[in-house]
């Protein structure tokens, strides 16, 4: 006897979602709930005691300039992320037009994203050495005045690190933009061409509105990536004070200063901030429309 489609549907929904949702709950929501619990304790990370401290950890975060101030070090990643999207969109538009050597350019620009993240960090560590490859290159291009001790100069180092992130990830954004551009029907372009609309106007009035959702997705990824920057400073500078992002500080609080409770509260604050920034950004870019 065959099952009705209605019953099939219910079975399928449950059957198809149960494993993925179980994974989601086990490895994301359950740990997140634990994190919330720890954030109200002064647990040291090892002890069997979890002394309850109420909101103390949260008030500490907002009153200790050392803790909250480390968001300043995330700022360069944030700006870098915005530039990354502009660059990615620019190249995506170029590569979606008729162009000689299109697939070669496309493949090469995507290349950095394919490289192992640790390898990329090491390559740039080498490049940024004082008097290293980058400085030598600038010198030989007659741009010697731009030479710097890229890692050693506290006002430059975070921009140098943010650039690594831009270099590594813009290819990913570019490919996503490319996909979106290709899905804009050819007829729209043609119609615009017949109207005699200029290049810029075509882009702004025909293409941009169609890209809104995808720009949002890309920004969402880069913004949350910027606020949670960790790997690049961790590998390249060992998270030294001038490069300690909020998340690096969180890990220090947990494992150098043995205050897992406070670190958990910092993680929750970070989560909320990312959420707020994303919401604001959605209002600005997306006109209030939901992404998914």
């Amino acid at each position, binding site marked *: 006897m065959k099952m009705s489609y209605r019953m099939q549907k219910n079975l399928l929904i449950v059957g198809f979602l149960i494993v993925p949702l179980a994974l989601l709950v086990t490895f994301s929501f359950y740990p997140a709930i634990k994190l919330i619990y720890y954030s109200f304790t002064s647990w040291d990370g090892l002890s069997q005691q979890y002394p309850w401290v109420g909101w103390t950890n949260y008030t500490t975060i907002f009153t200790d300039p050392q803790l909250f101030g480390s968001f300043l070090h995330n700022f360069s990643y944030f700006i870098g992320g915005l530039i990354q999207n502009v660059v990615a969109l620019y190249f995506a538009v170029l590569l979606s037009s008729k162009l000689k050597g299109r697939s070669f350019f496309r493949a090469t620009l995507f290349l950095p994203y394919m490289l192992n993240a640790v390898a990329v960090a090491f390559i740039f560590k080498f490049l940024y050495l004082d008097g290293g490859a980058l400085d030598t290159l600038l010198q030989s291009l007659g741009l010697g005045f731009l030479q710097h001790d890229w*890692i050693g100069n506290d006002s430059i*180092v975070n921009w140098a690190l943010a650039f690594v992130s831009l270099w590594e990830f813009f290819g990913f954004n570019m490919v996503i933009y490319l996909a979106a551009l290709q899905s804009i029907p050819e007829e729209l372009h043609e119609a615009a061409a017949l109207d005699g609309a200029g290049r810029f106007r075509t882009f702004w009035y025909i293409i941009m509105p169609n890209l809104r959702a995808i720009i949002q997705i890309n920004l969402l990824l880069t913004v949350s990536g910027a606020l949670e920057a960790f790997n690049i400073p961790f590998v390249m500078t060992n998270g030294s004070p001038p490069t300690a992002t909020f998340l690096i500080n969180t890990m*220090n609080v947990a494992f150098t200063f043995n205050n897992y409770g406070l670190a958990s509260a910092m993680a929750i604050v970070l989560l909320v901030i990312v959420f707020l920034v994303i919401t604001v950004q959605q209002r600005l870019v997306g006109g209030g429309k939901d992404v998914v």
Partner: protein
Amino acid sequence: MKKWMGPLSAVGVSAAMLVGSLASAQAADMNKAVTGTITVLTNRTDMQANGMLNTYSKEFEKLYPGTTVKWQTFVDNNTVQAQMNGGVYPDVMLILPSVTKEELPQFFAPLDNLGLDGKVYFGNYQSYQGKTYGIASFGDTNGIVYNVAAFKKAGIKGVPRTLNEFYADCAMLKKAGIVPIALNYTDKWPLGNWSNSLPDLIAKNANYMNTMANENAPFSAKSPEGESLLIARTLVQKGFVEHDFKNTNWANSKVQLAKGKFGMMFLGNWAIPQIVADGTPSSNVGFFPFPATNSGKNIAIIGPDWFFAVNKNSKHIATAEAFVKWELLDSGFADYAGGIPTIKTQKSHVPQLAVFEKLASAVIPGVPDSDTLTKIENGAQLDITGGGAVQSFLIARNPASAFAQMNQAWASARMMVGK
């Protein structure tokens, strides 16, 4: 005793003499249970790379057939601490600095049955309620490791005895095109000596750091702690450190020191063999007490390196214990590492240490940090032990306001701890 004879002949006579004096009936019983696979935590990535760890496993496995020794290399506190929380950590452990005394029994098996009580240095460092949970892998004393040829090239005769002489020698090295002293800023831990070891030397008191717990403002130009930080800062300001000092690490610096491109580093005696291994004769590496003051009398303090411990949840506690004992008594690790053996009857074979001891006005034993001090440091979020505080101080715009900030954090942390 007879049971021991078989395996002992394999390791040689000197080991036999050492173990002979320590072996007991208890140890012979332990031998029976020594079997199975154990994992050993190590911080020596260099010994992983050069195959020494592998040699150790093979020697131990030969001595105790049926055992297998695996290594886990230490990455950061963080990963090991997560393992400890989960209850799945290596059988032979290194005690993390974050483990408090009360937490020792929660994670480790007491080592009093090894028959080493009273026969090792630093026996009281990792003990709780009368039981010992950790034995130091070897002892260290911190001083200036230097390249002898570089000193000669710079025209320096004899090692500096006072702080002023030290600065003068730095200037001479710099003039000779040699980086006077390497800080290894990026690694962070090498900076710990400037905040955690130098103050004791200035105060000529091994217990000085602990007295900071009683003060509300221990950071000032007049306090030993503040003076130490200022010495490090002076070196930076006079250009006596690596020109790109914020992008430097120990693995690179030791090669440069071996080559004579760097003159000095403020580290423990353990650094000596590693520098020698990078291609310079042992006679070219010297070691002298830090000329911490202008008094001309410089003391040295001997403290423990990492502590070995045994996982109390280990399936093969006996094997893990045997390994700890073997590593302390017979492996030659202390010598290989250039350390002072923990076993009181063993002597150090590092030639530089004998010279060092003669240069020191006194060599005194270290004192462990009190739990109160650690709690205040953590509460104030000042990484004095690990070097993070030095990192921040070196790049602070204004030392006076940096001191003020540190004192403020310190005072409020003291209040929280209830001191």
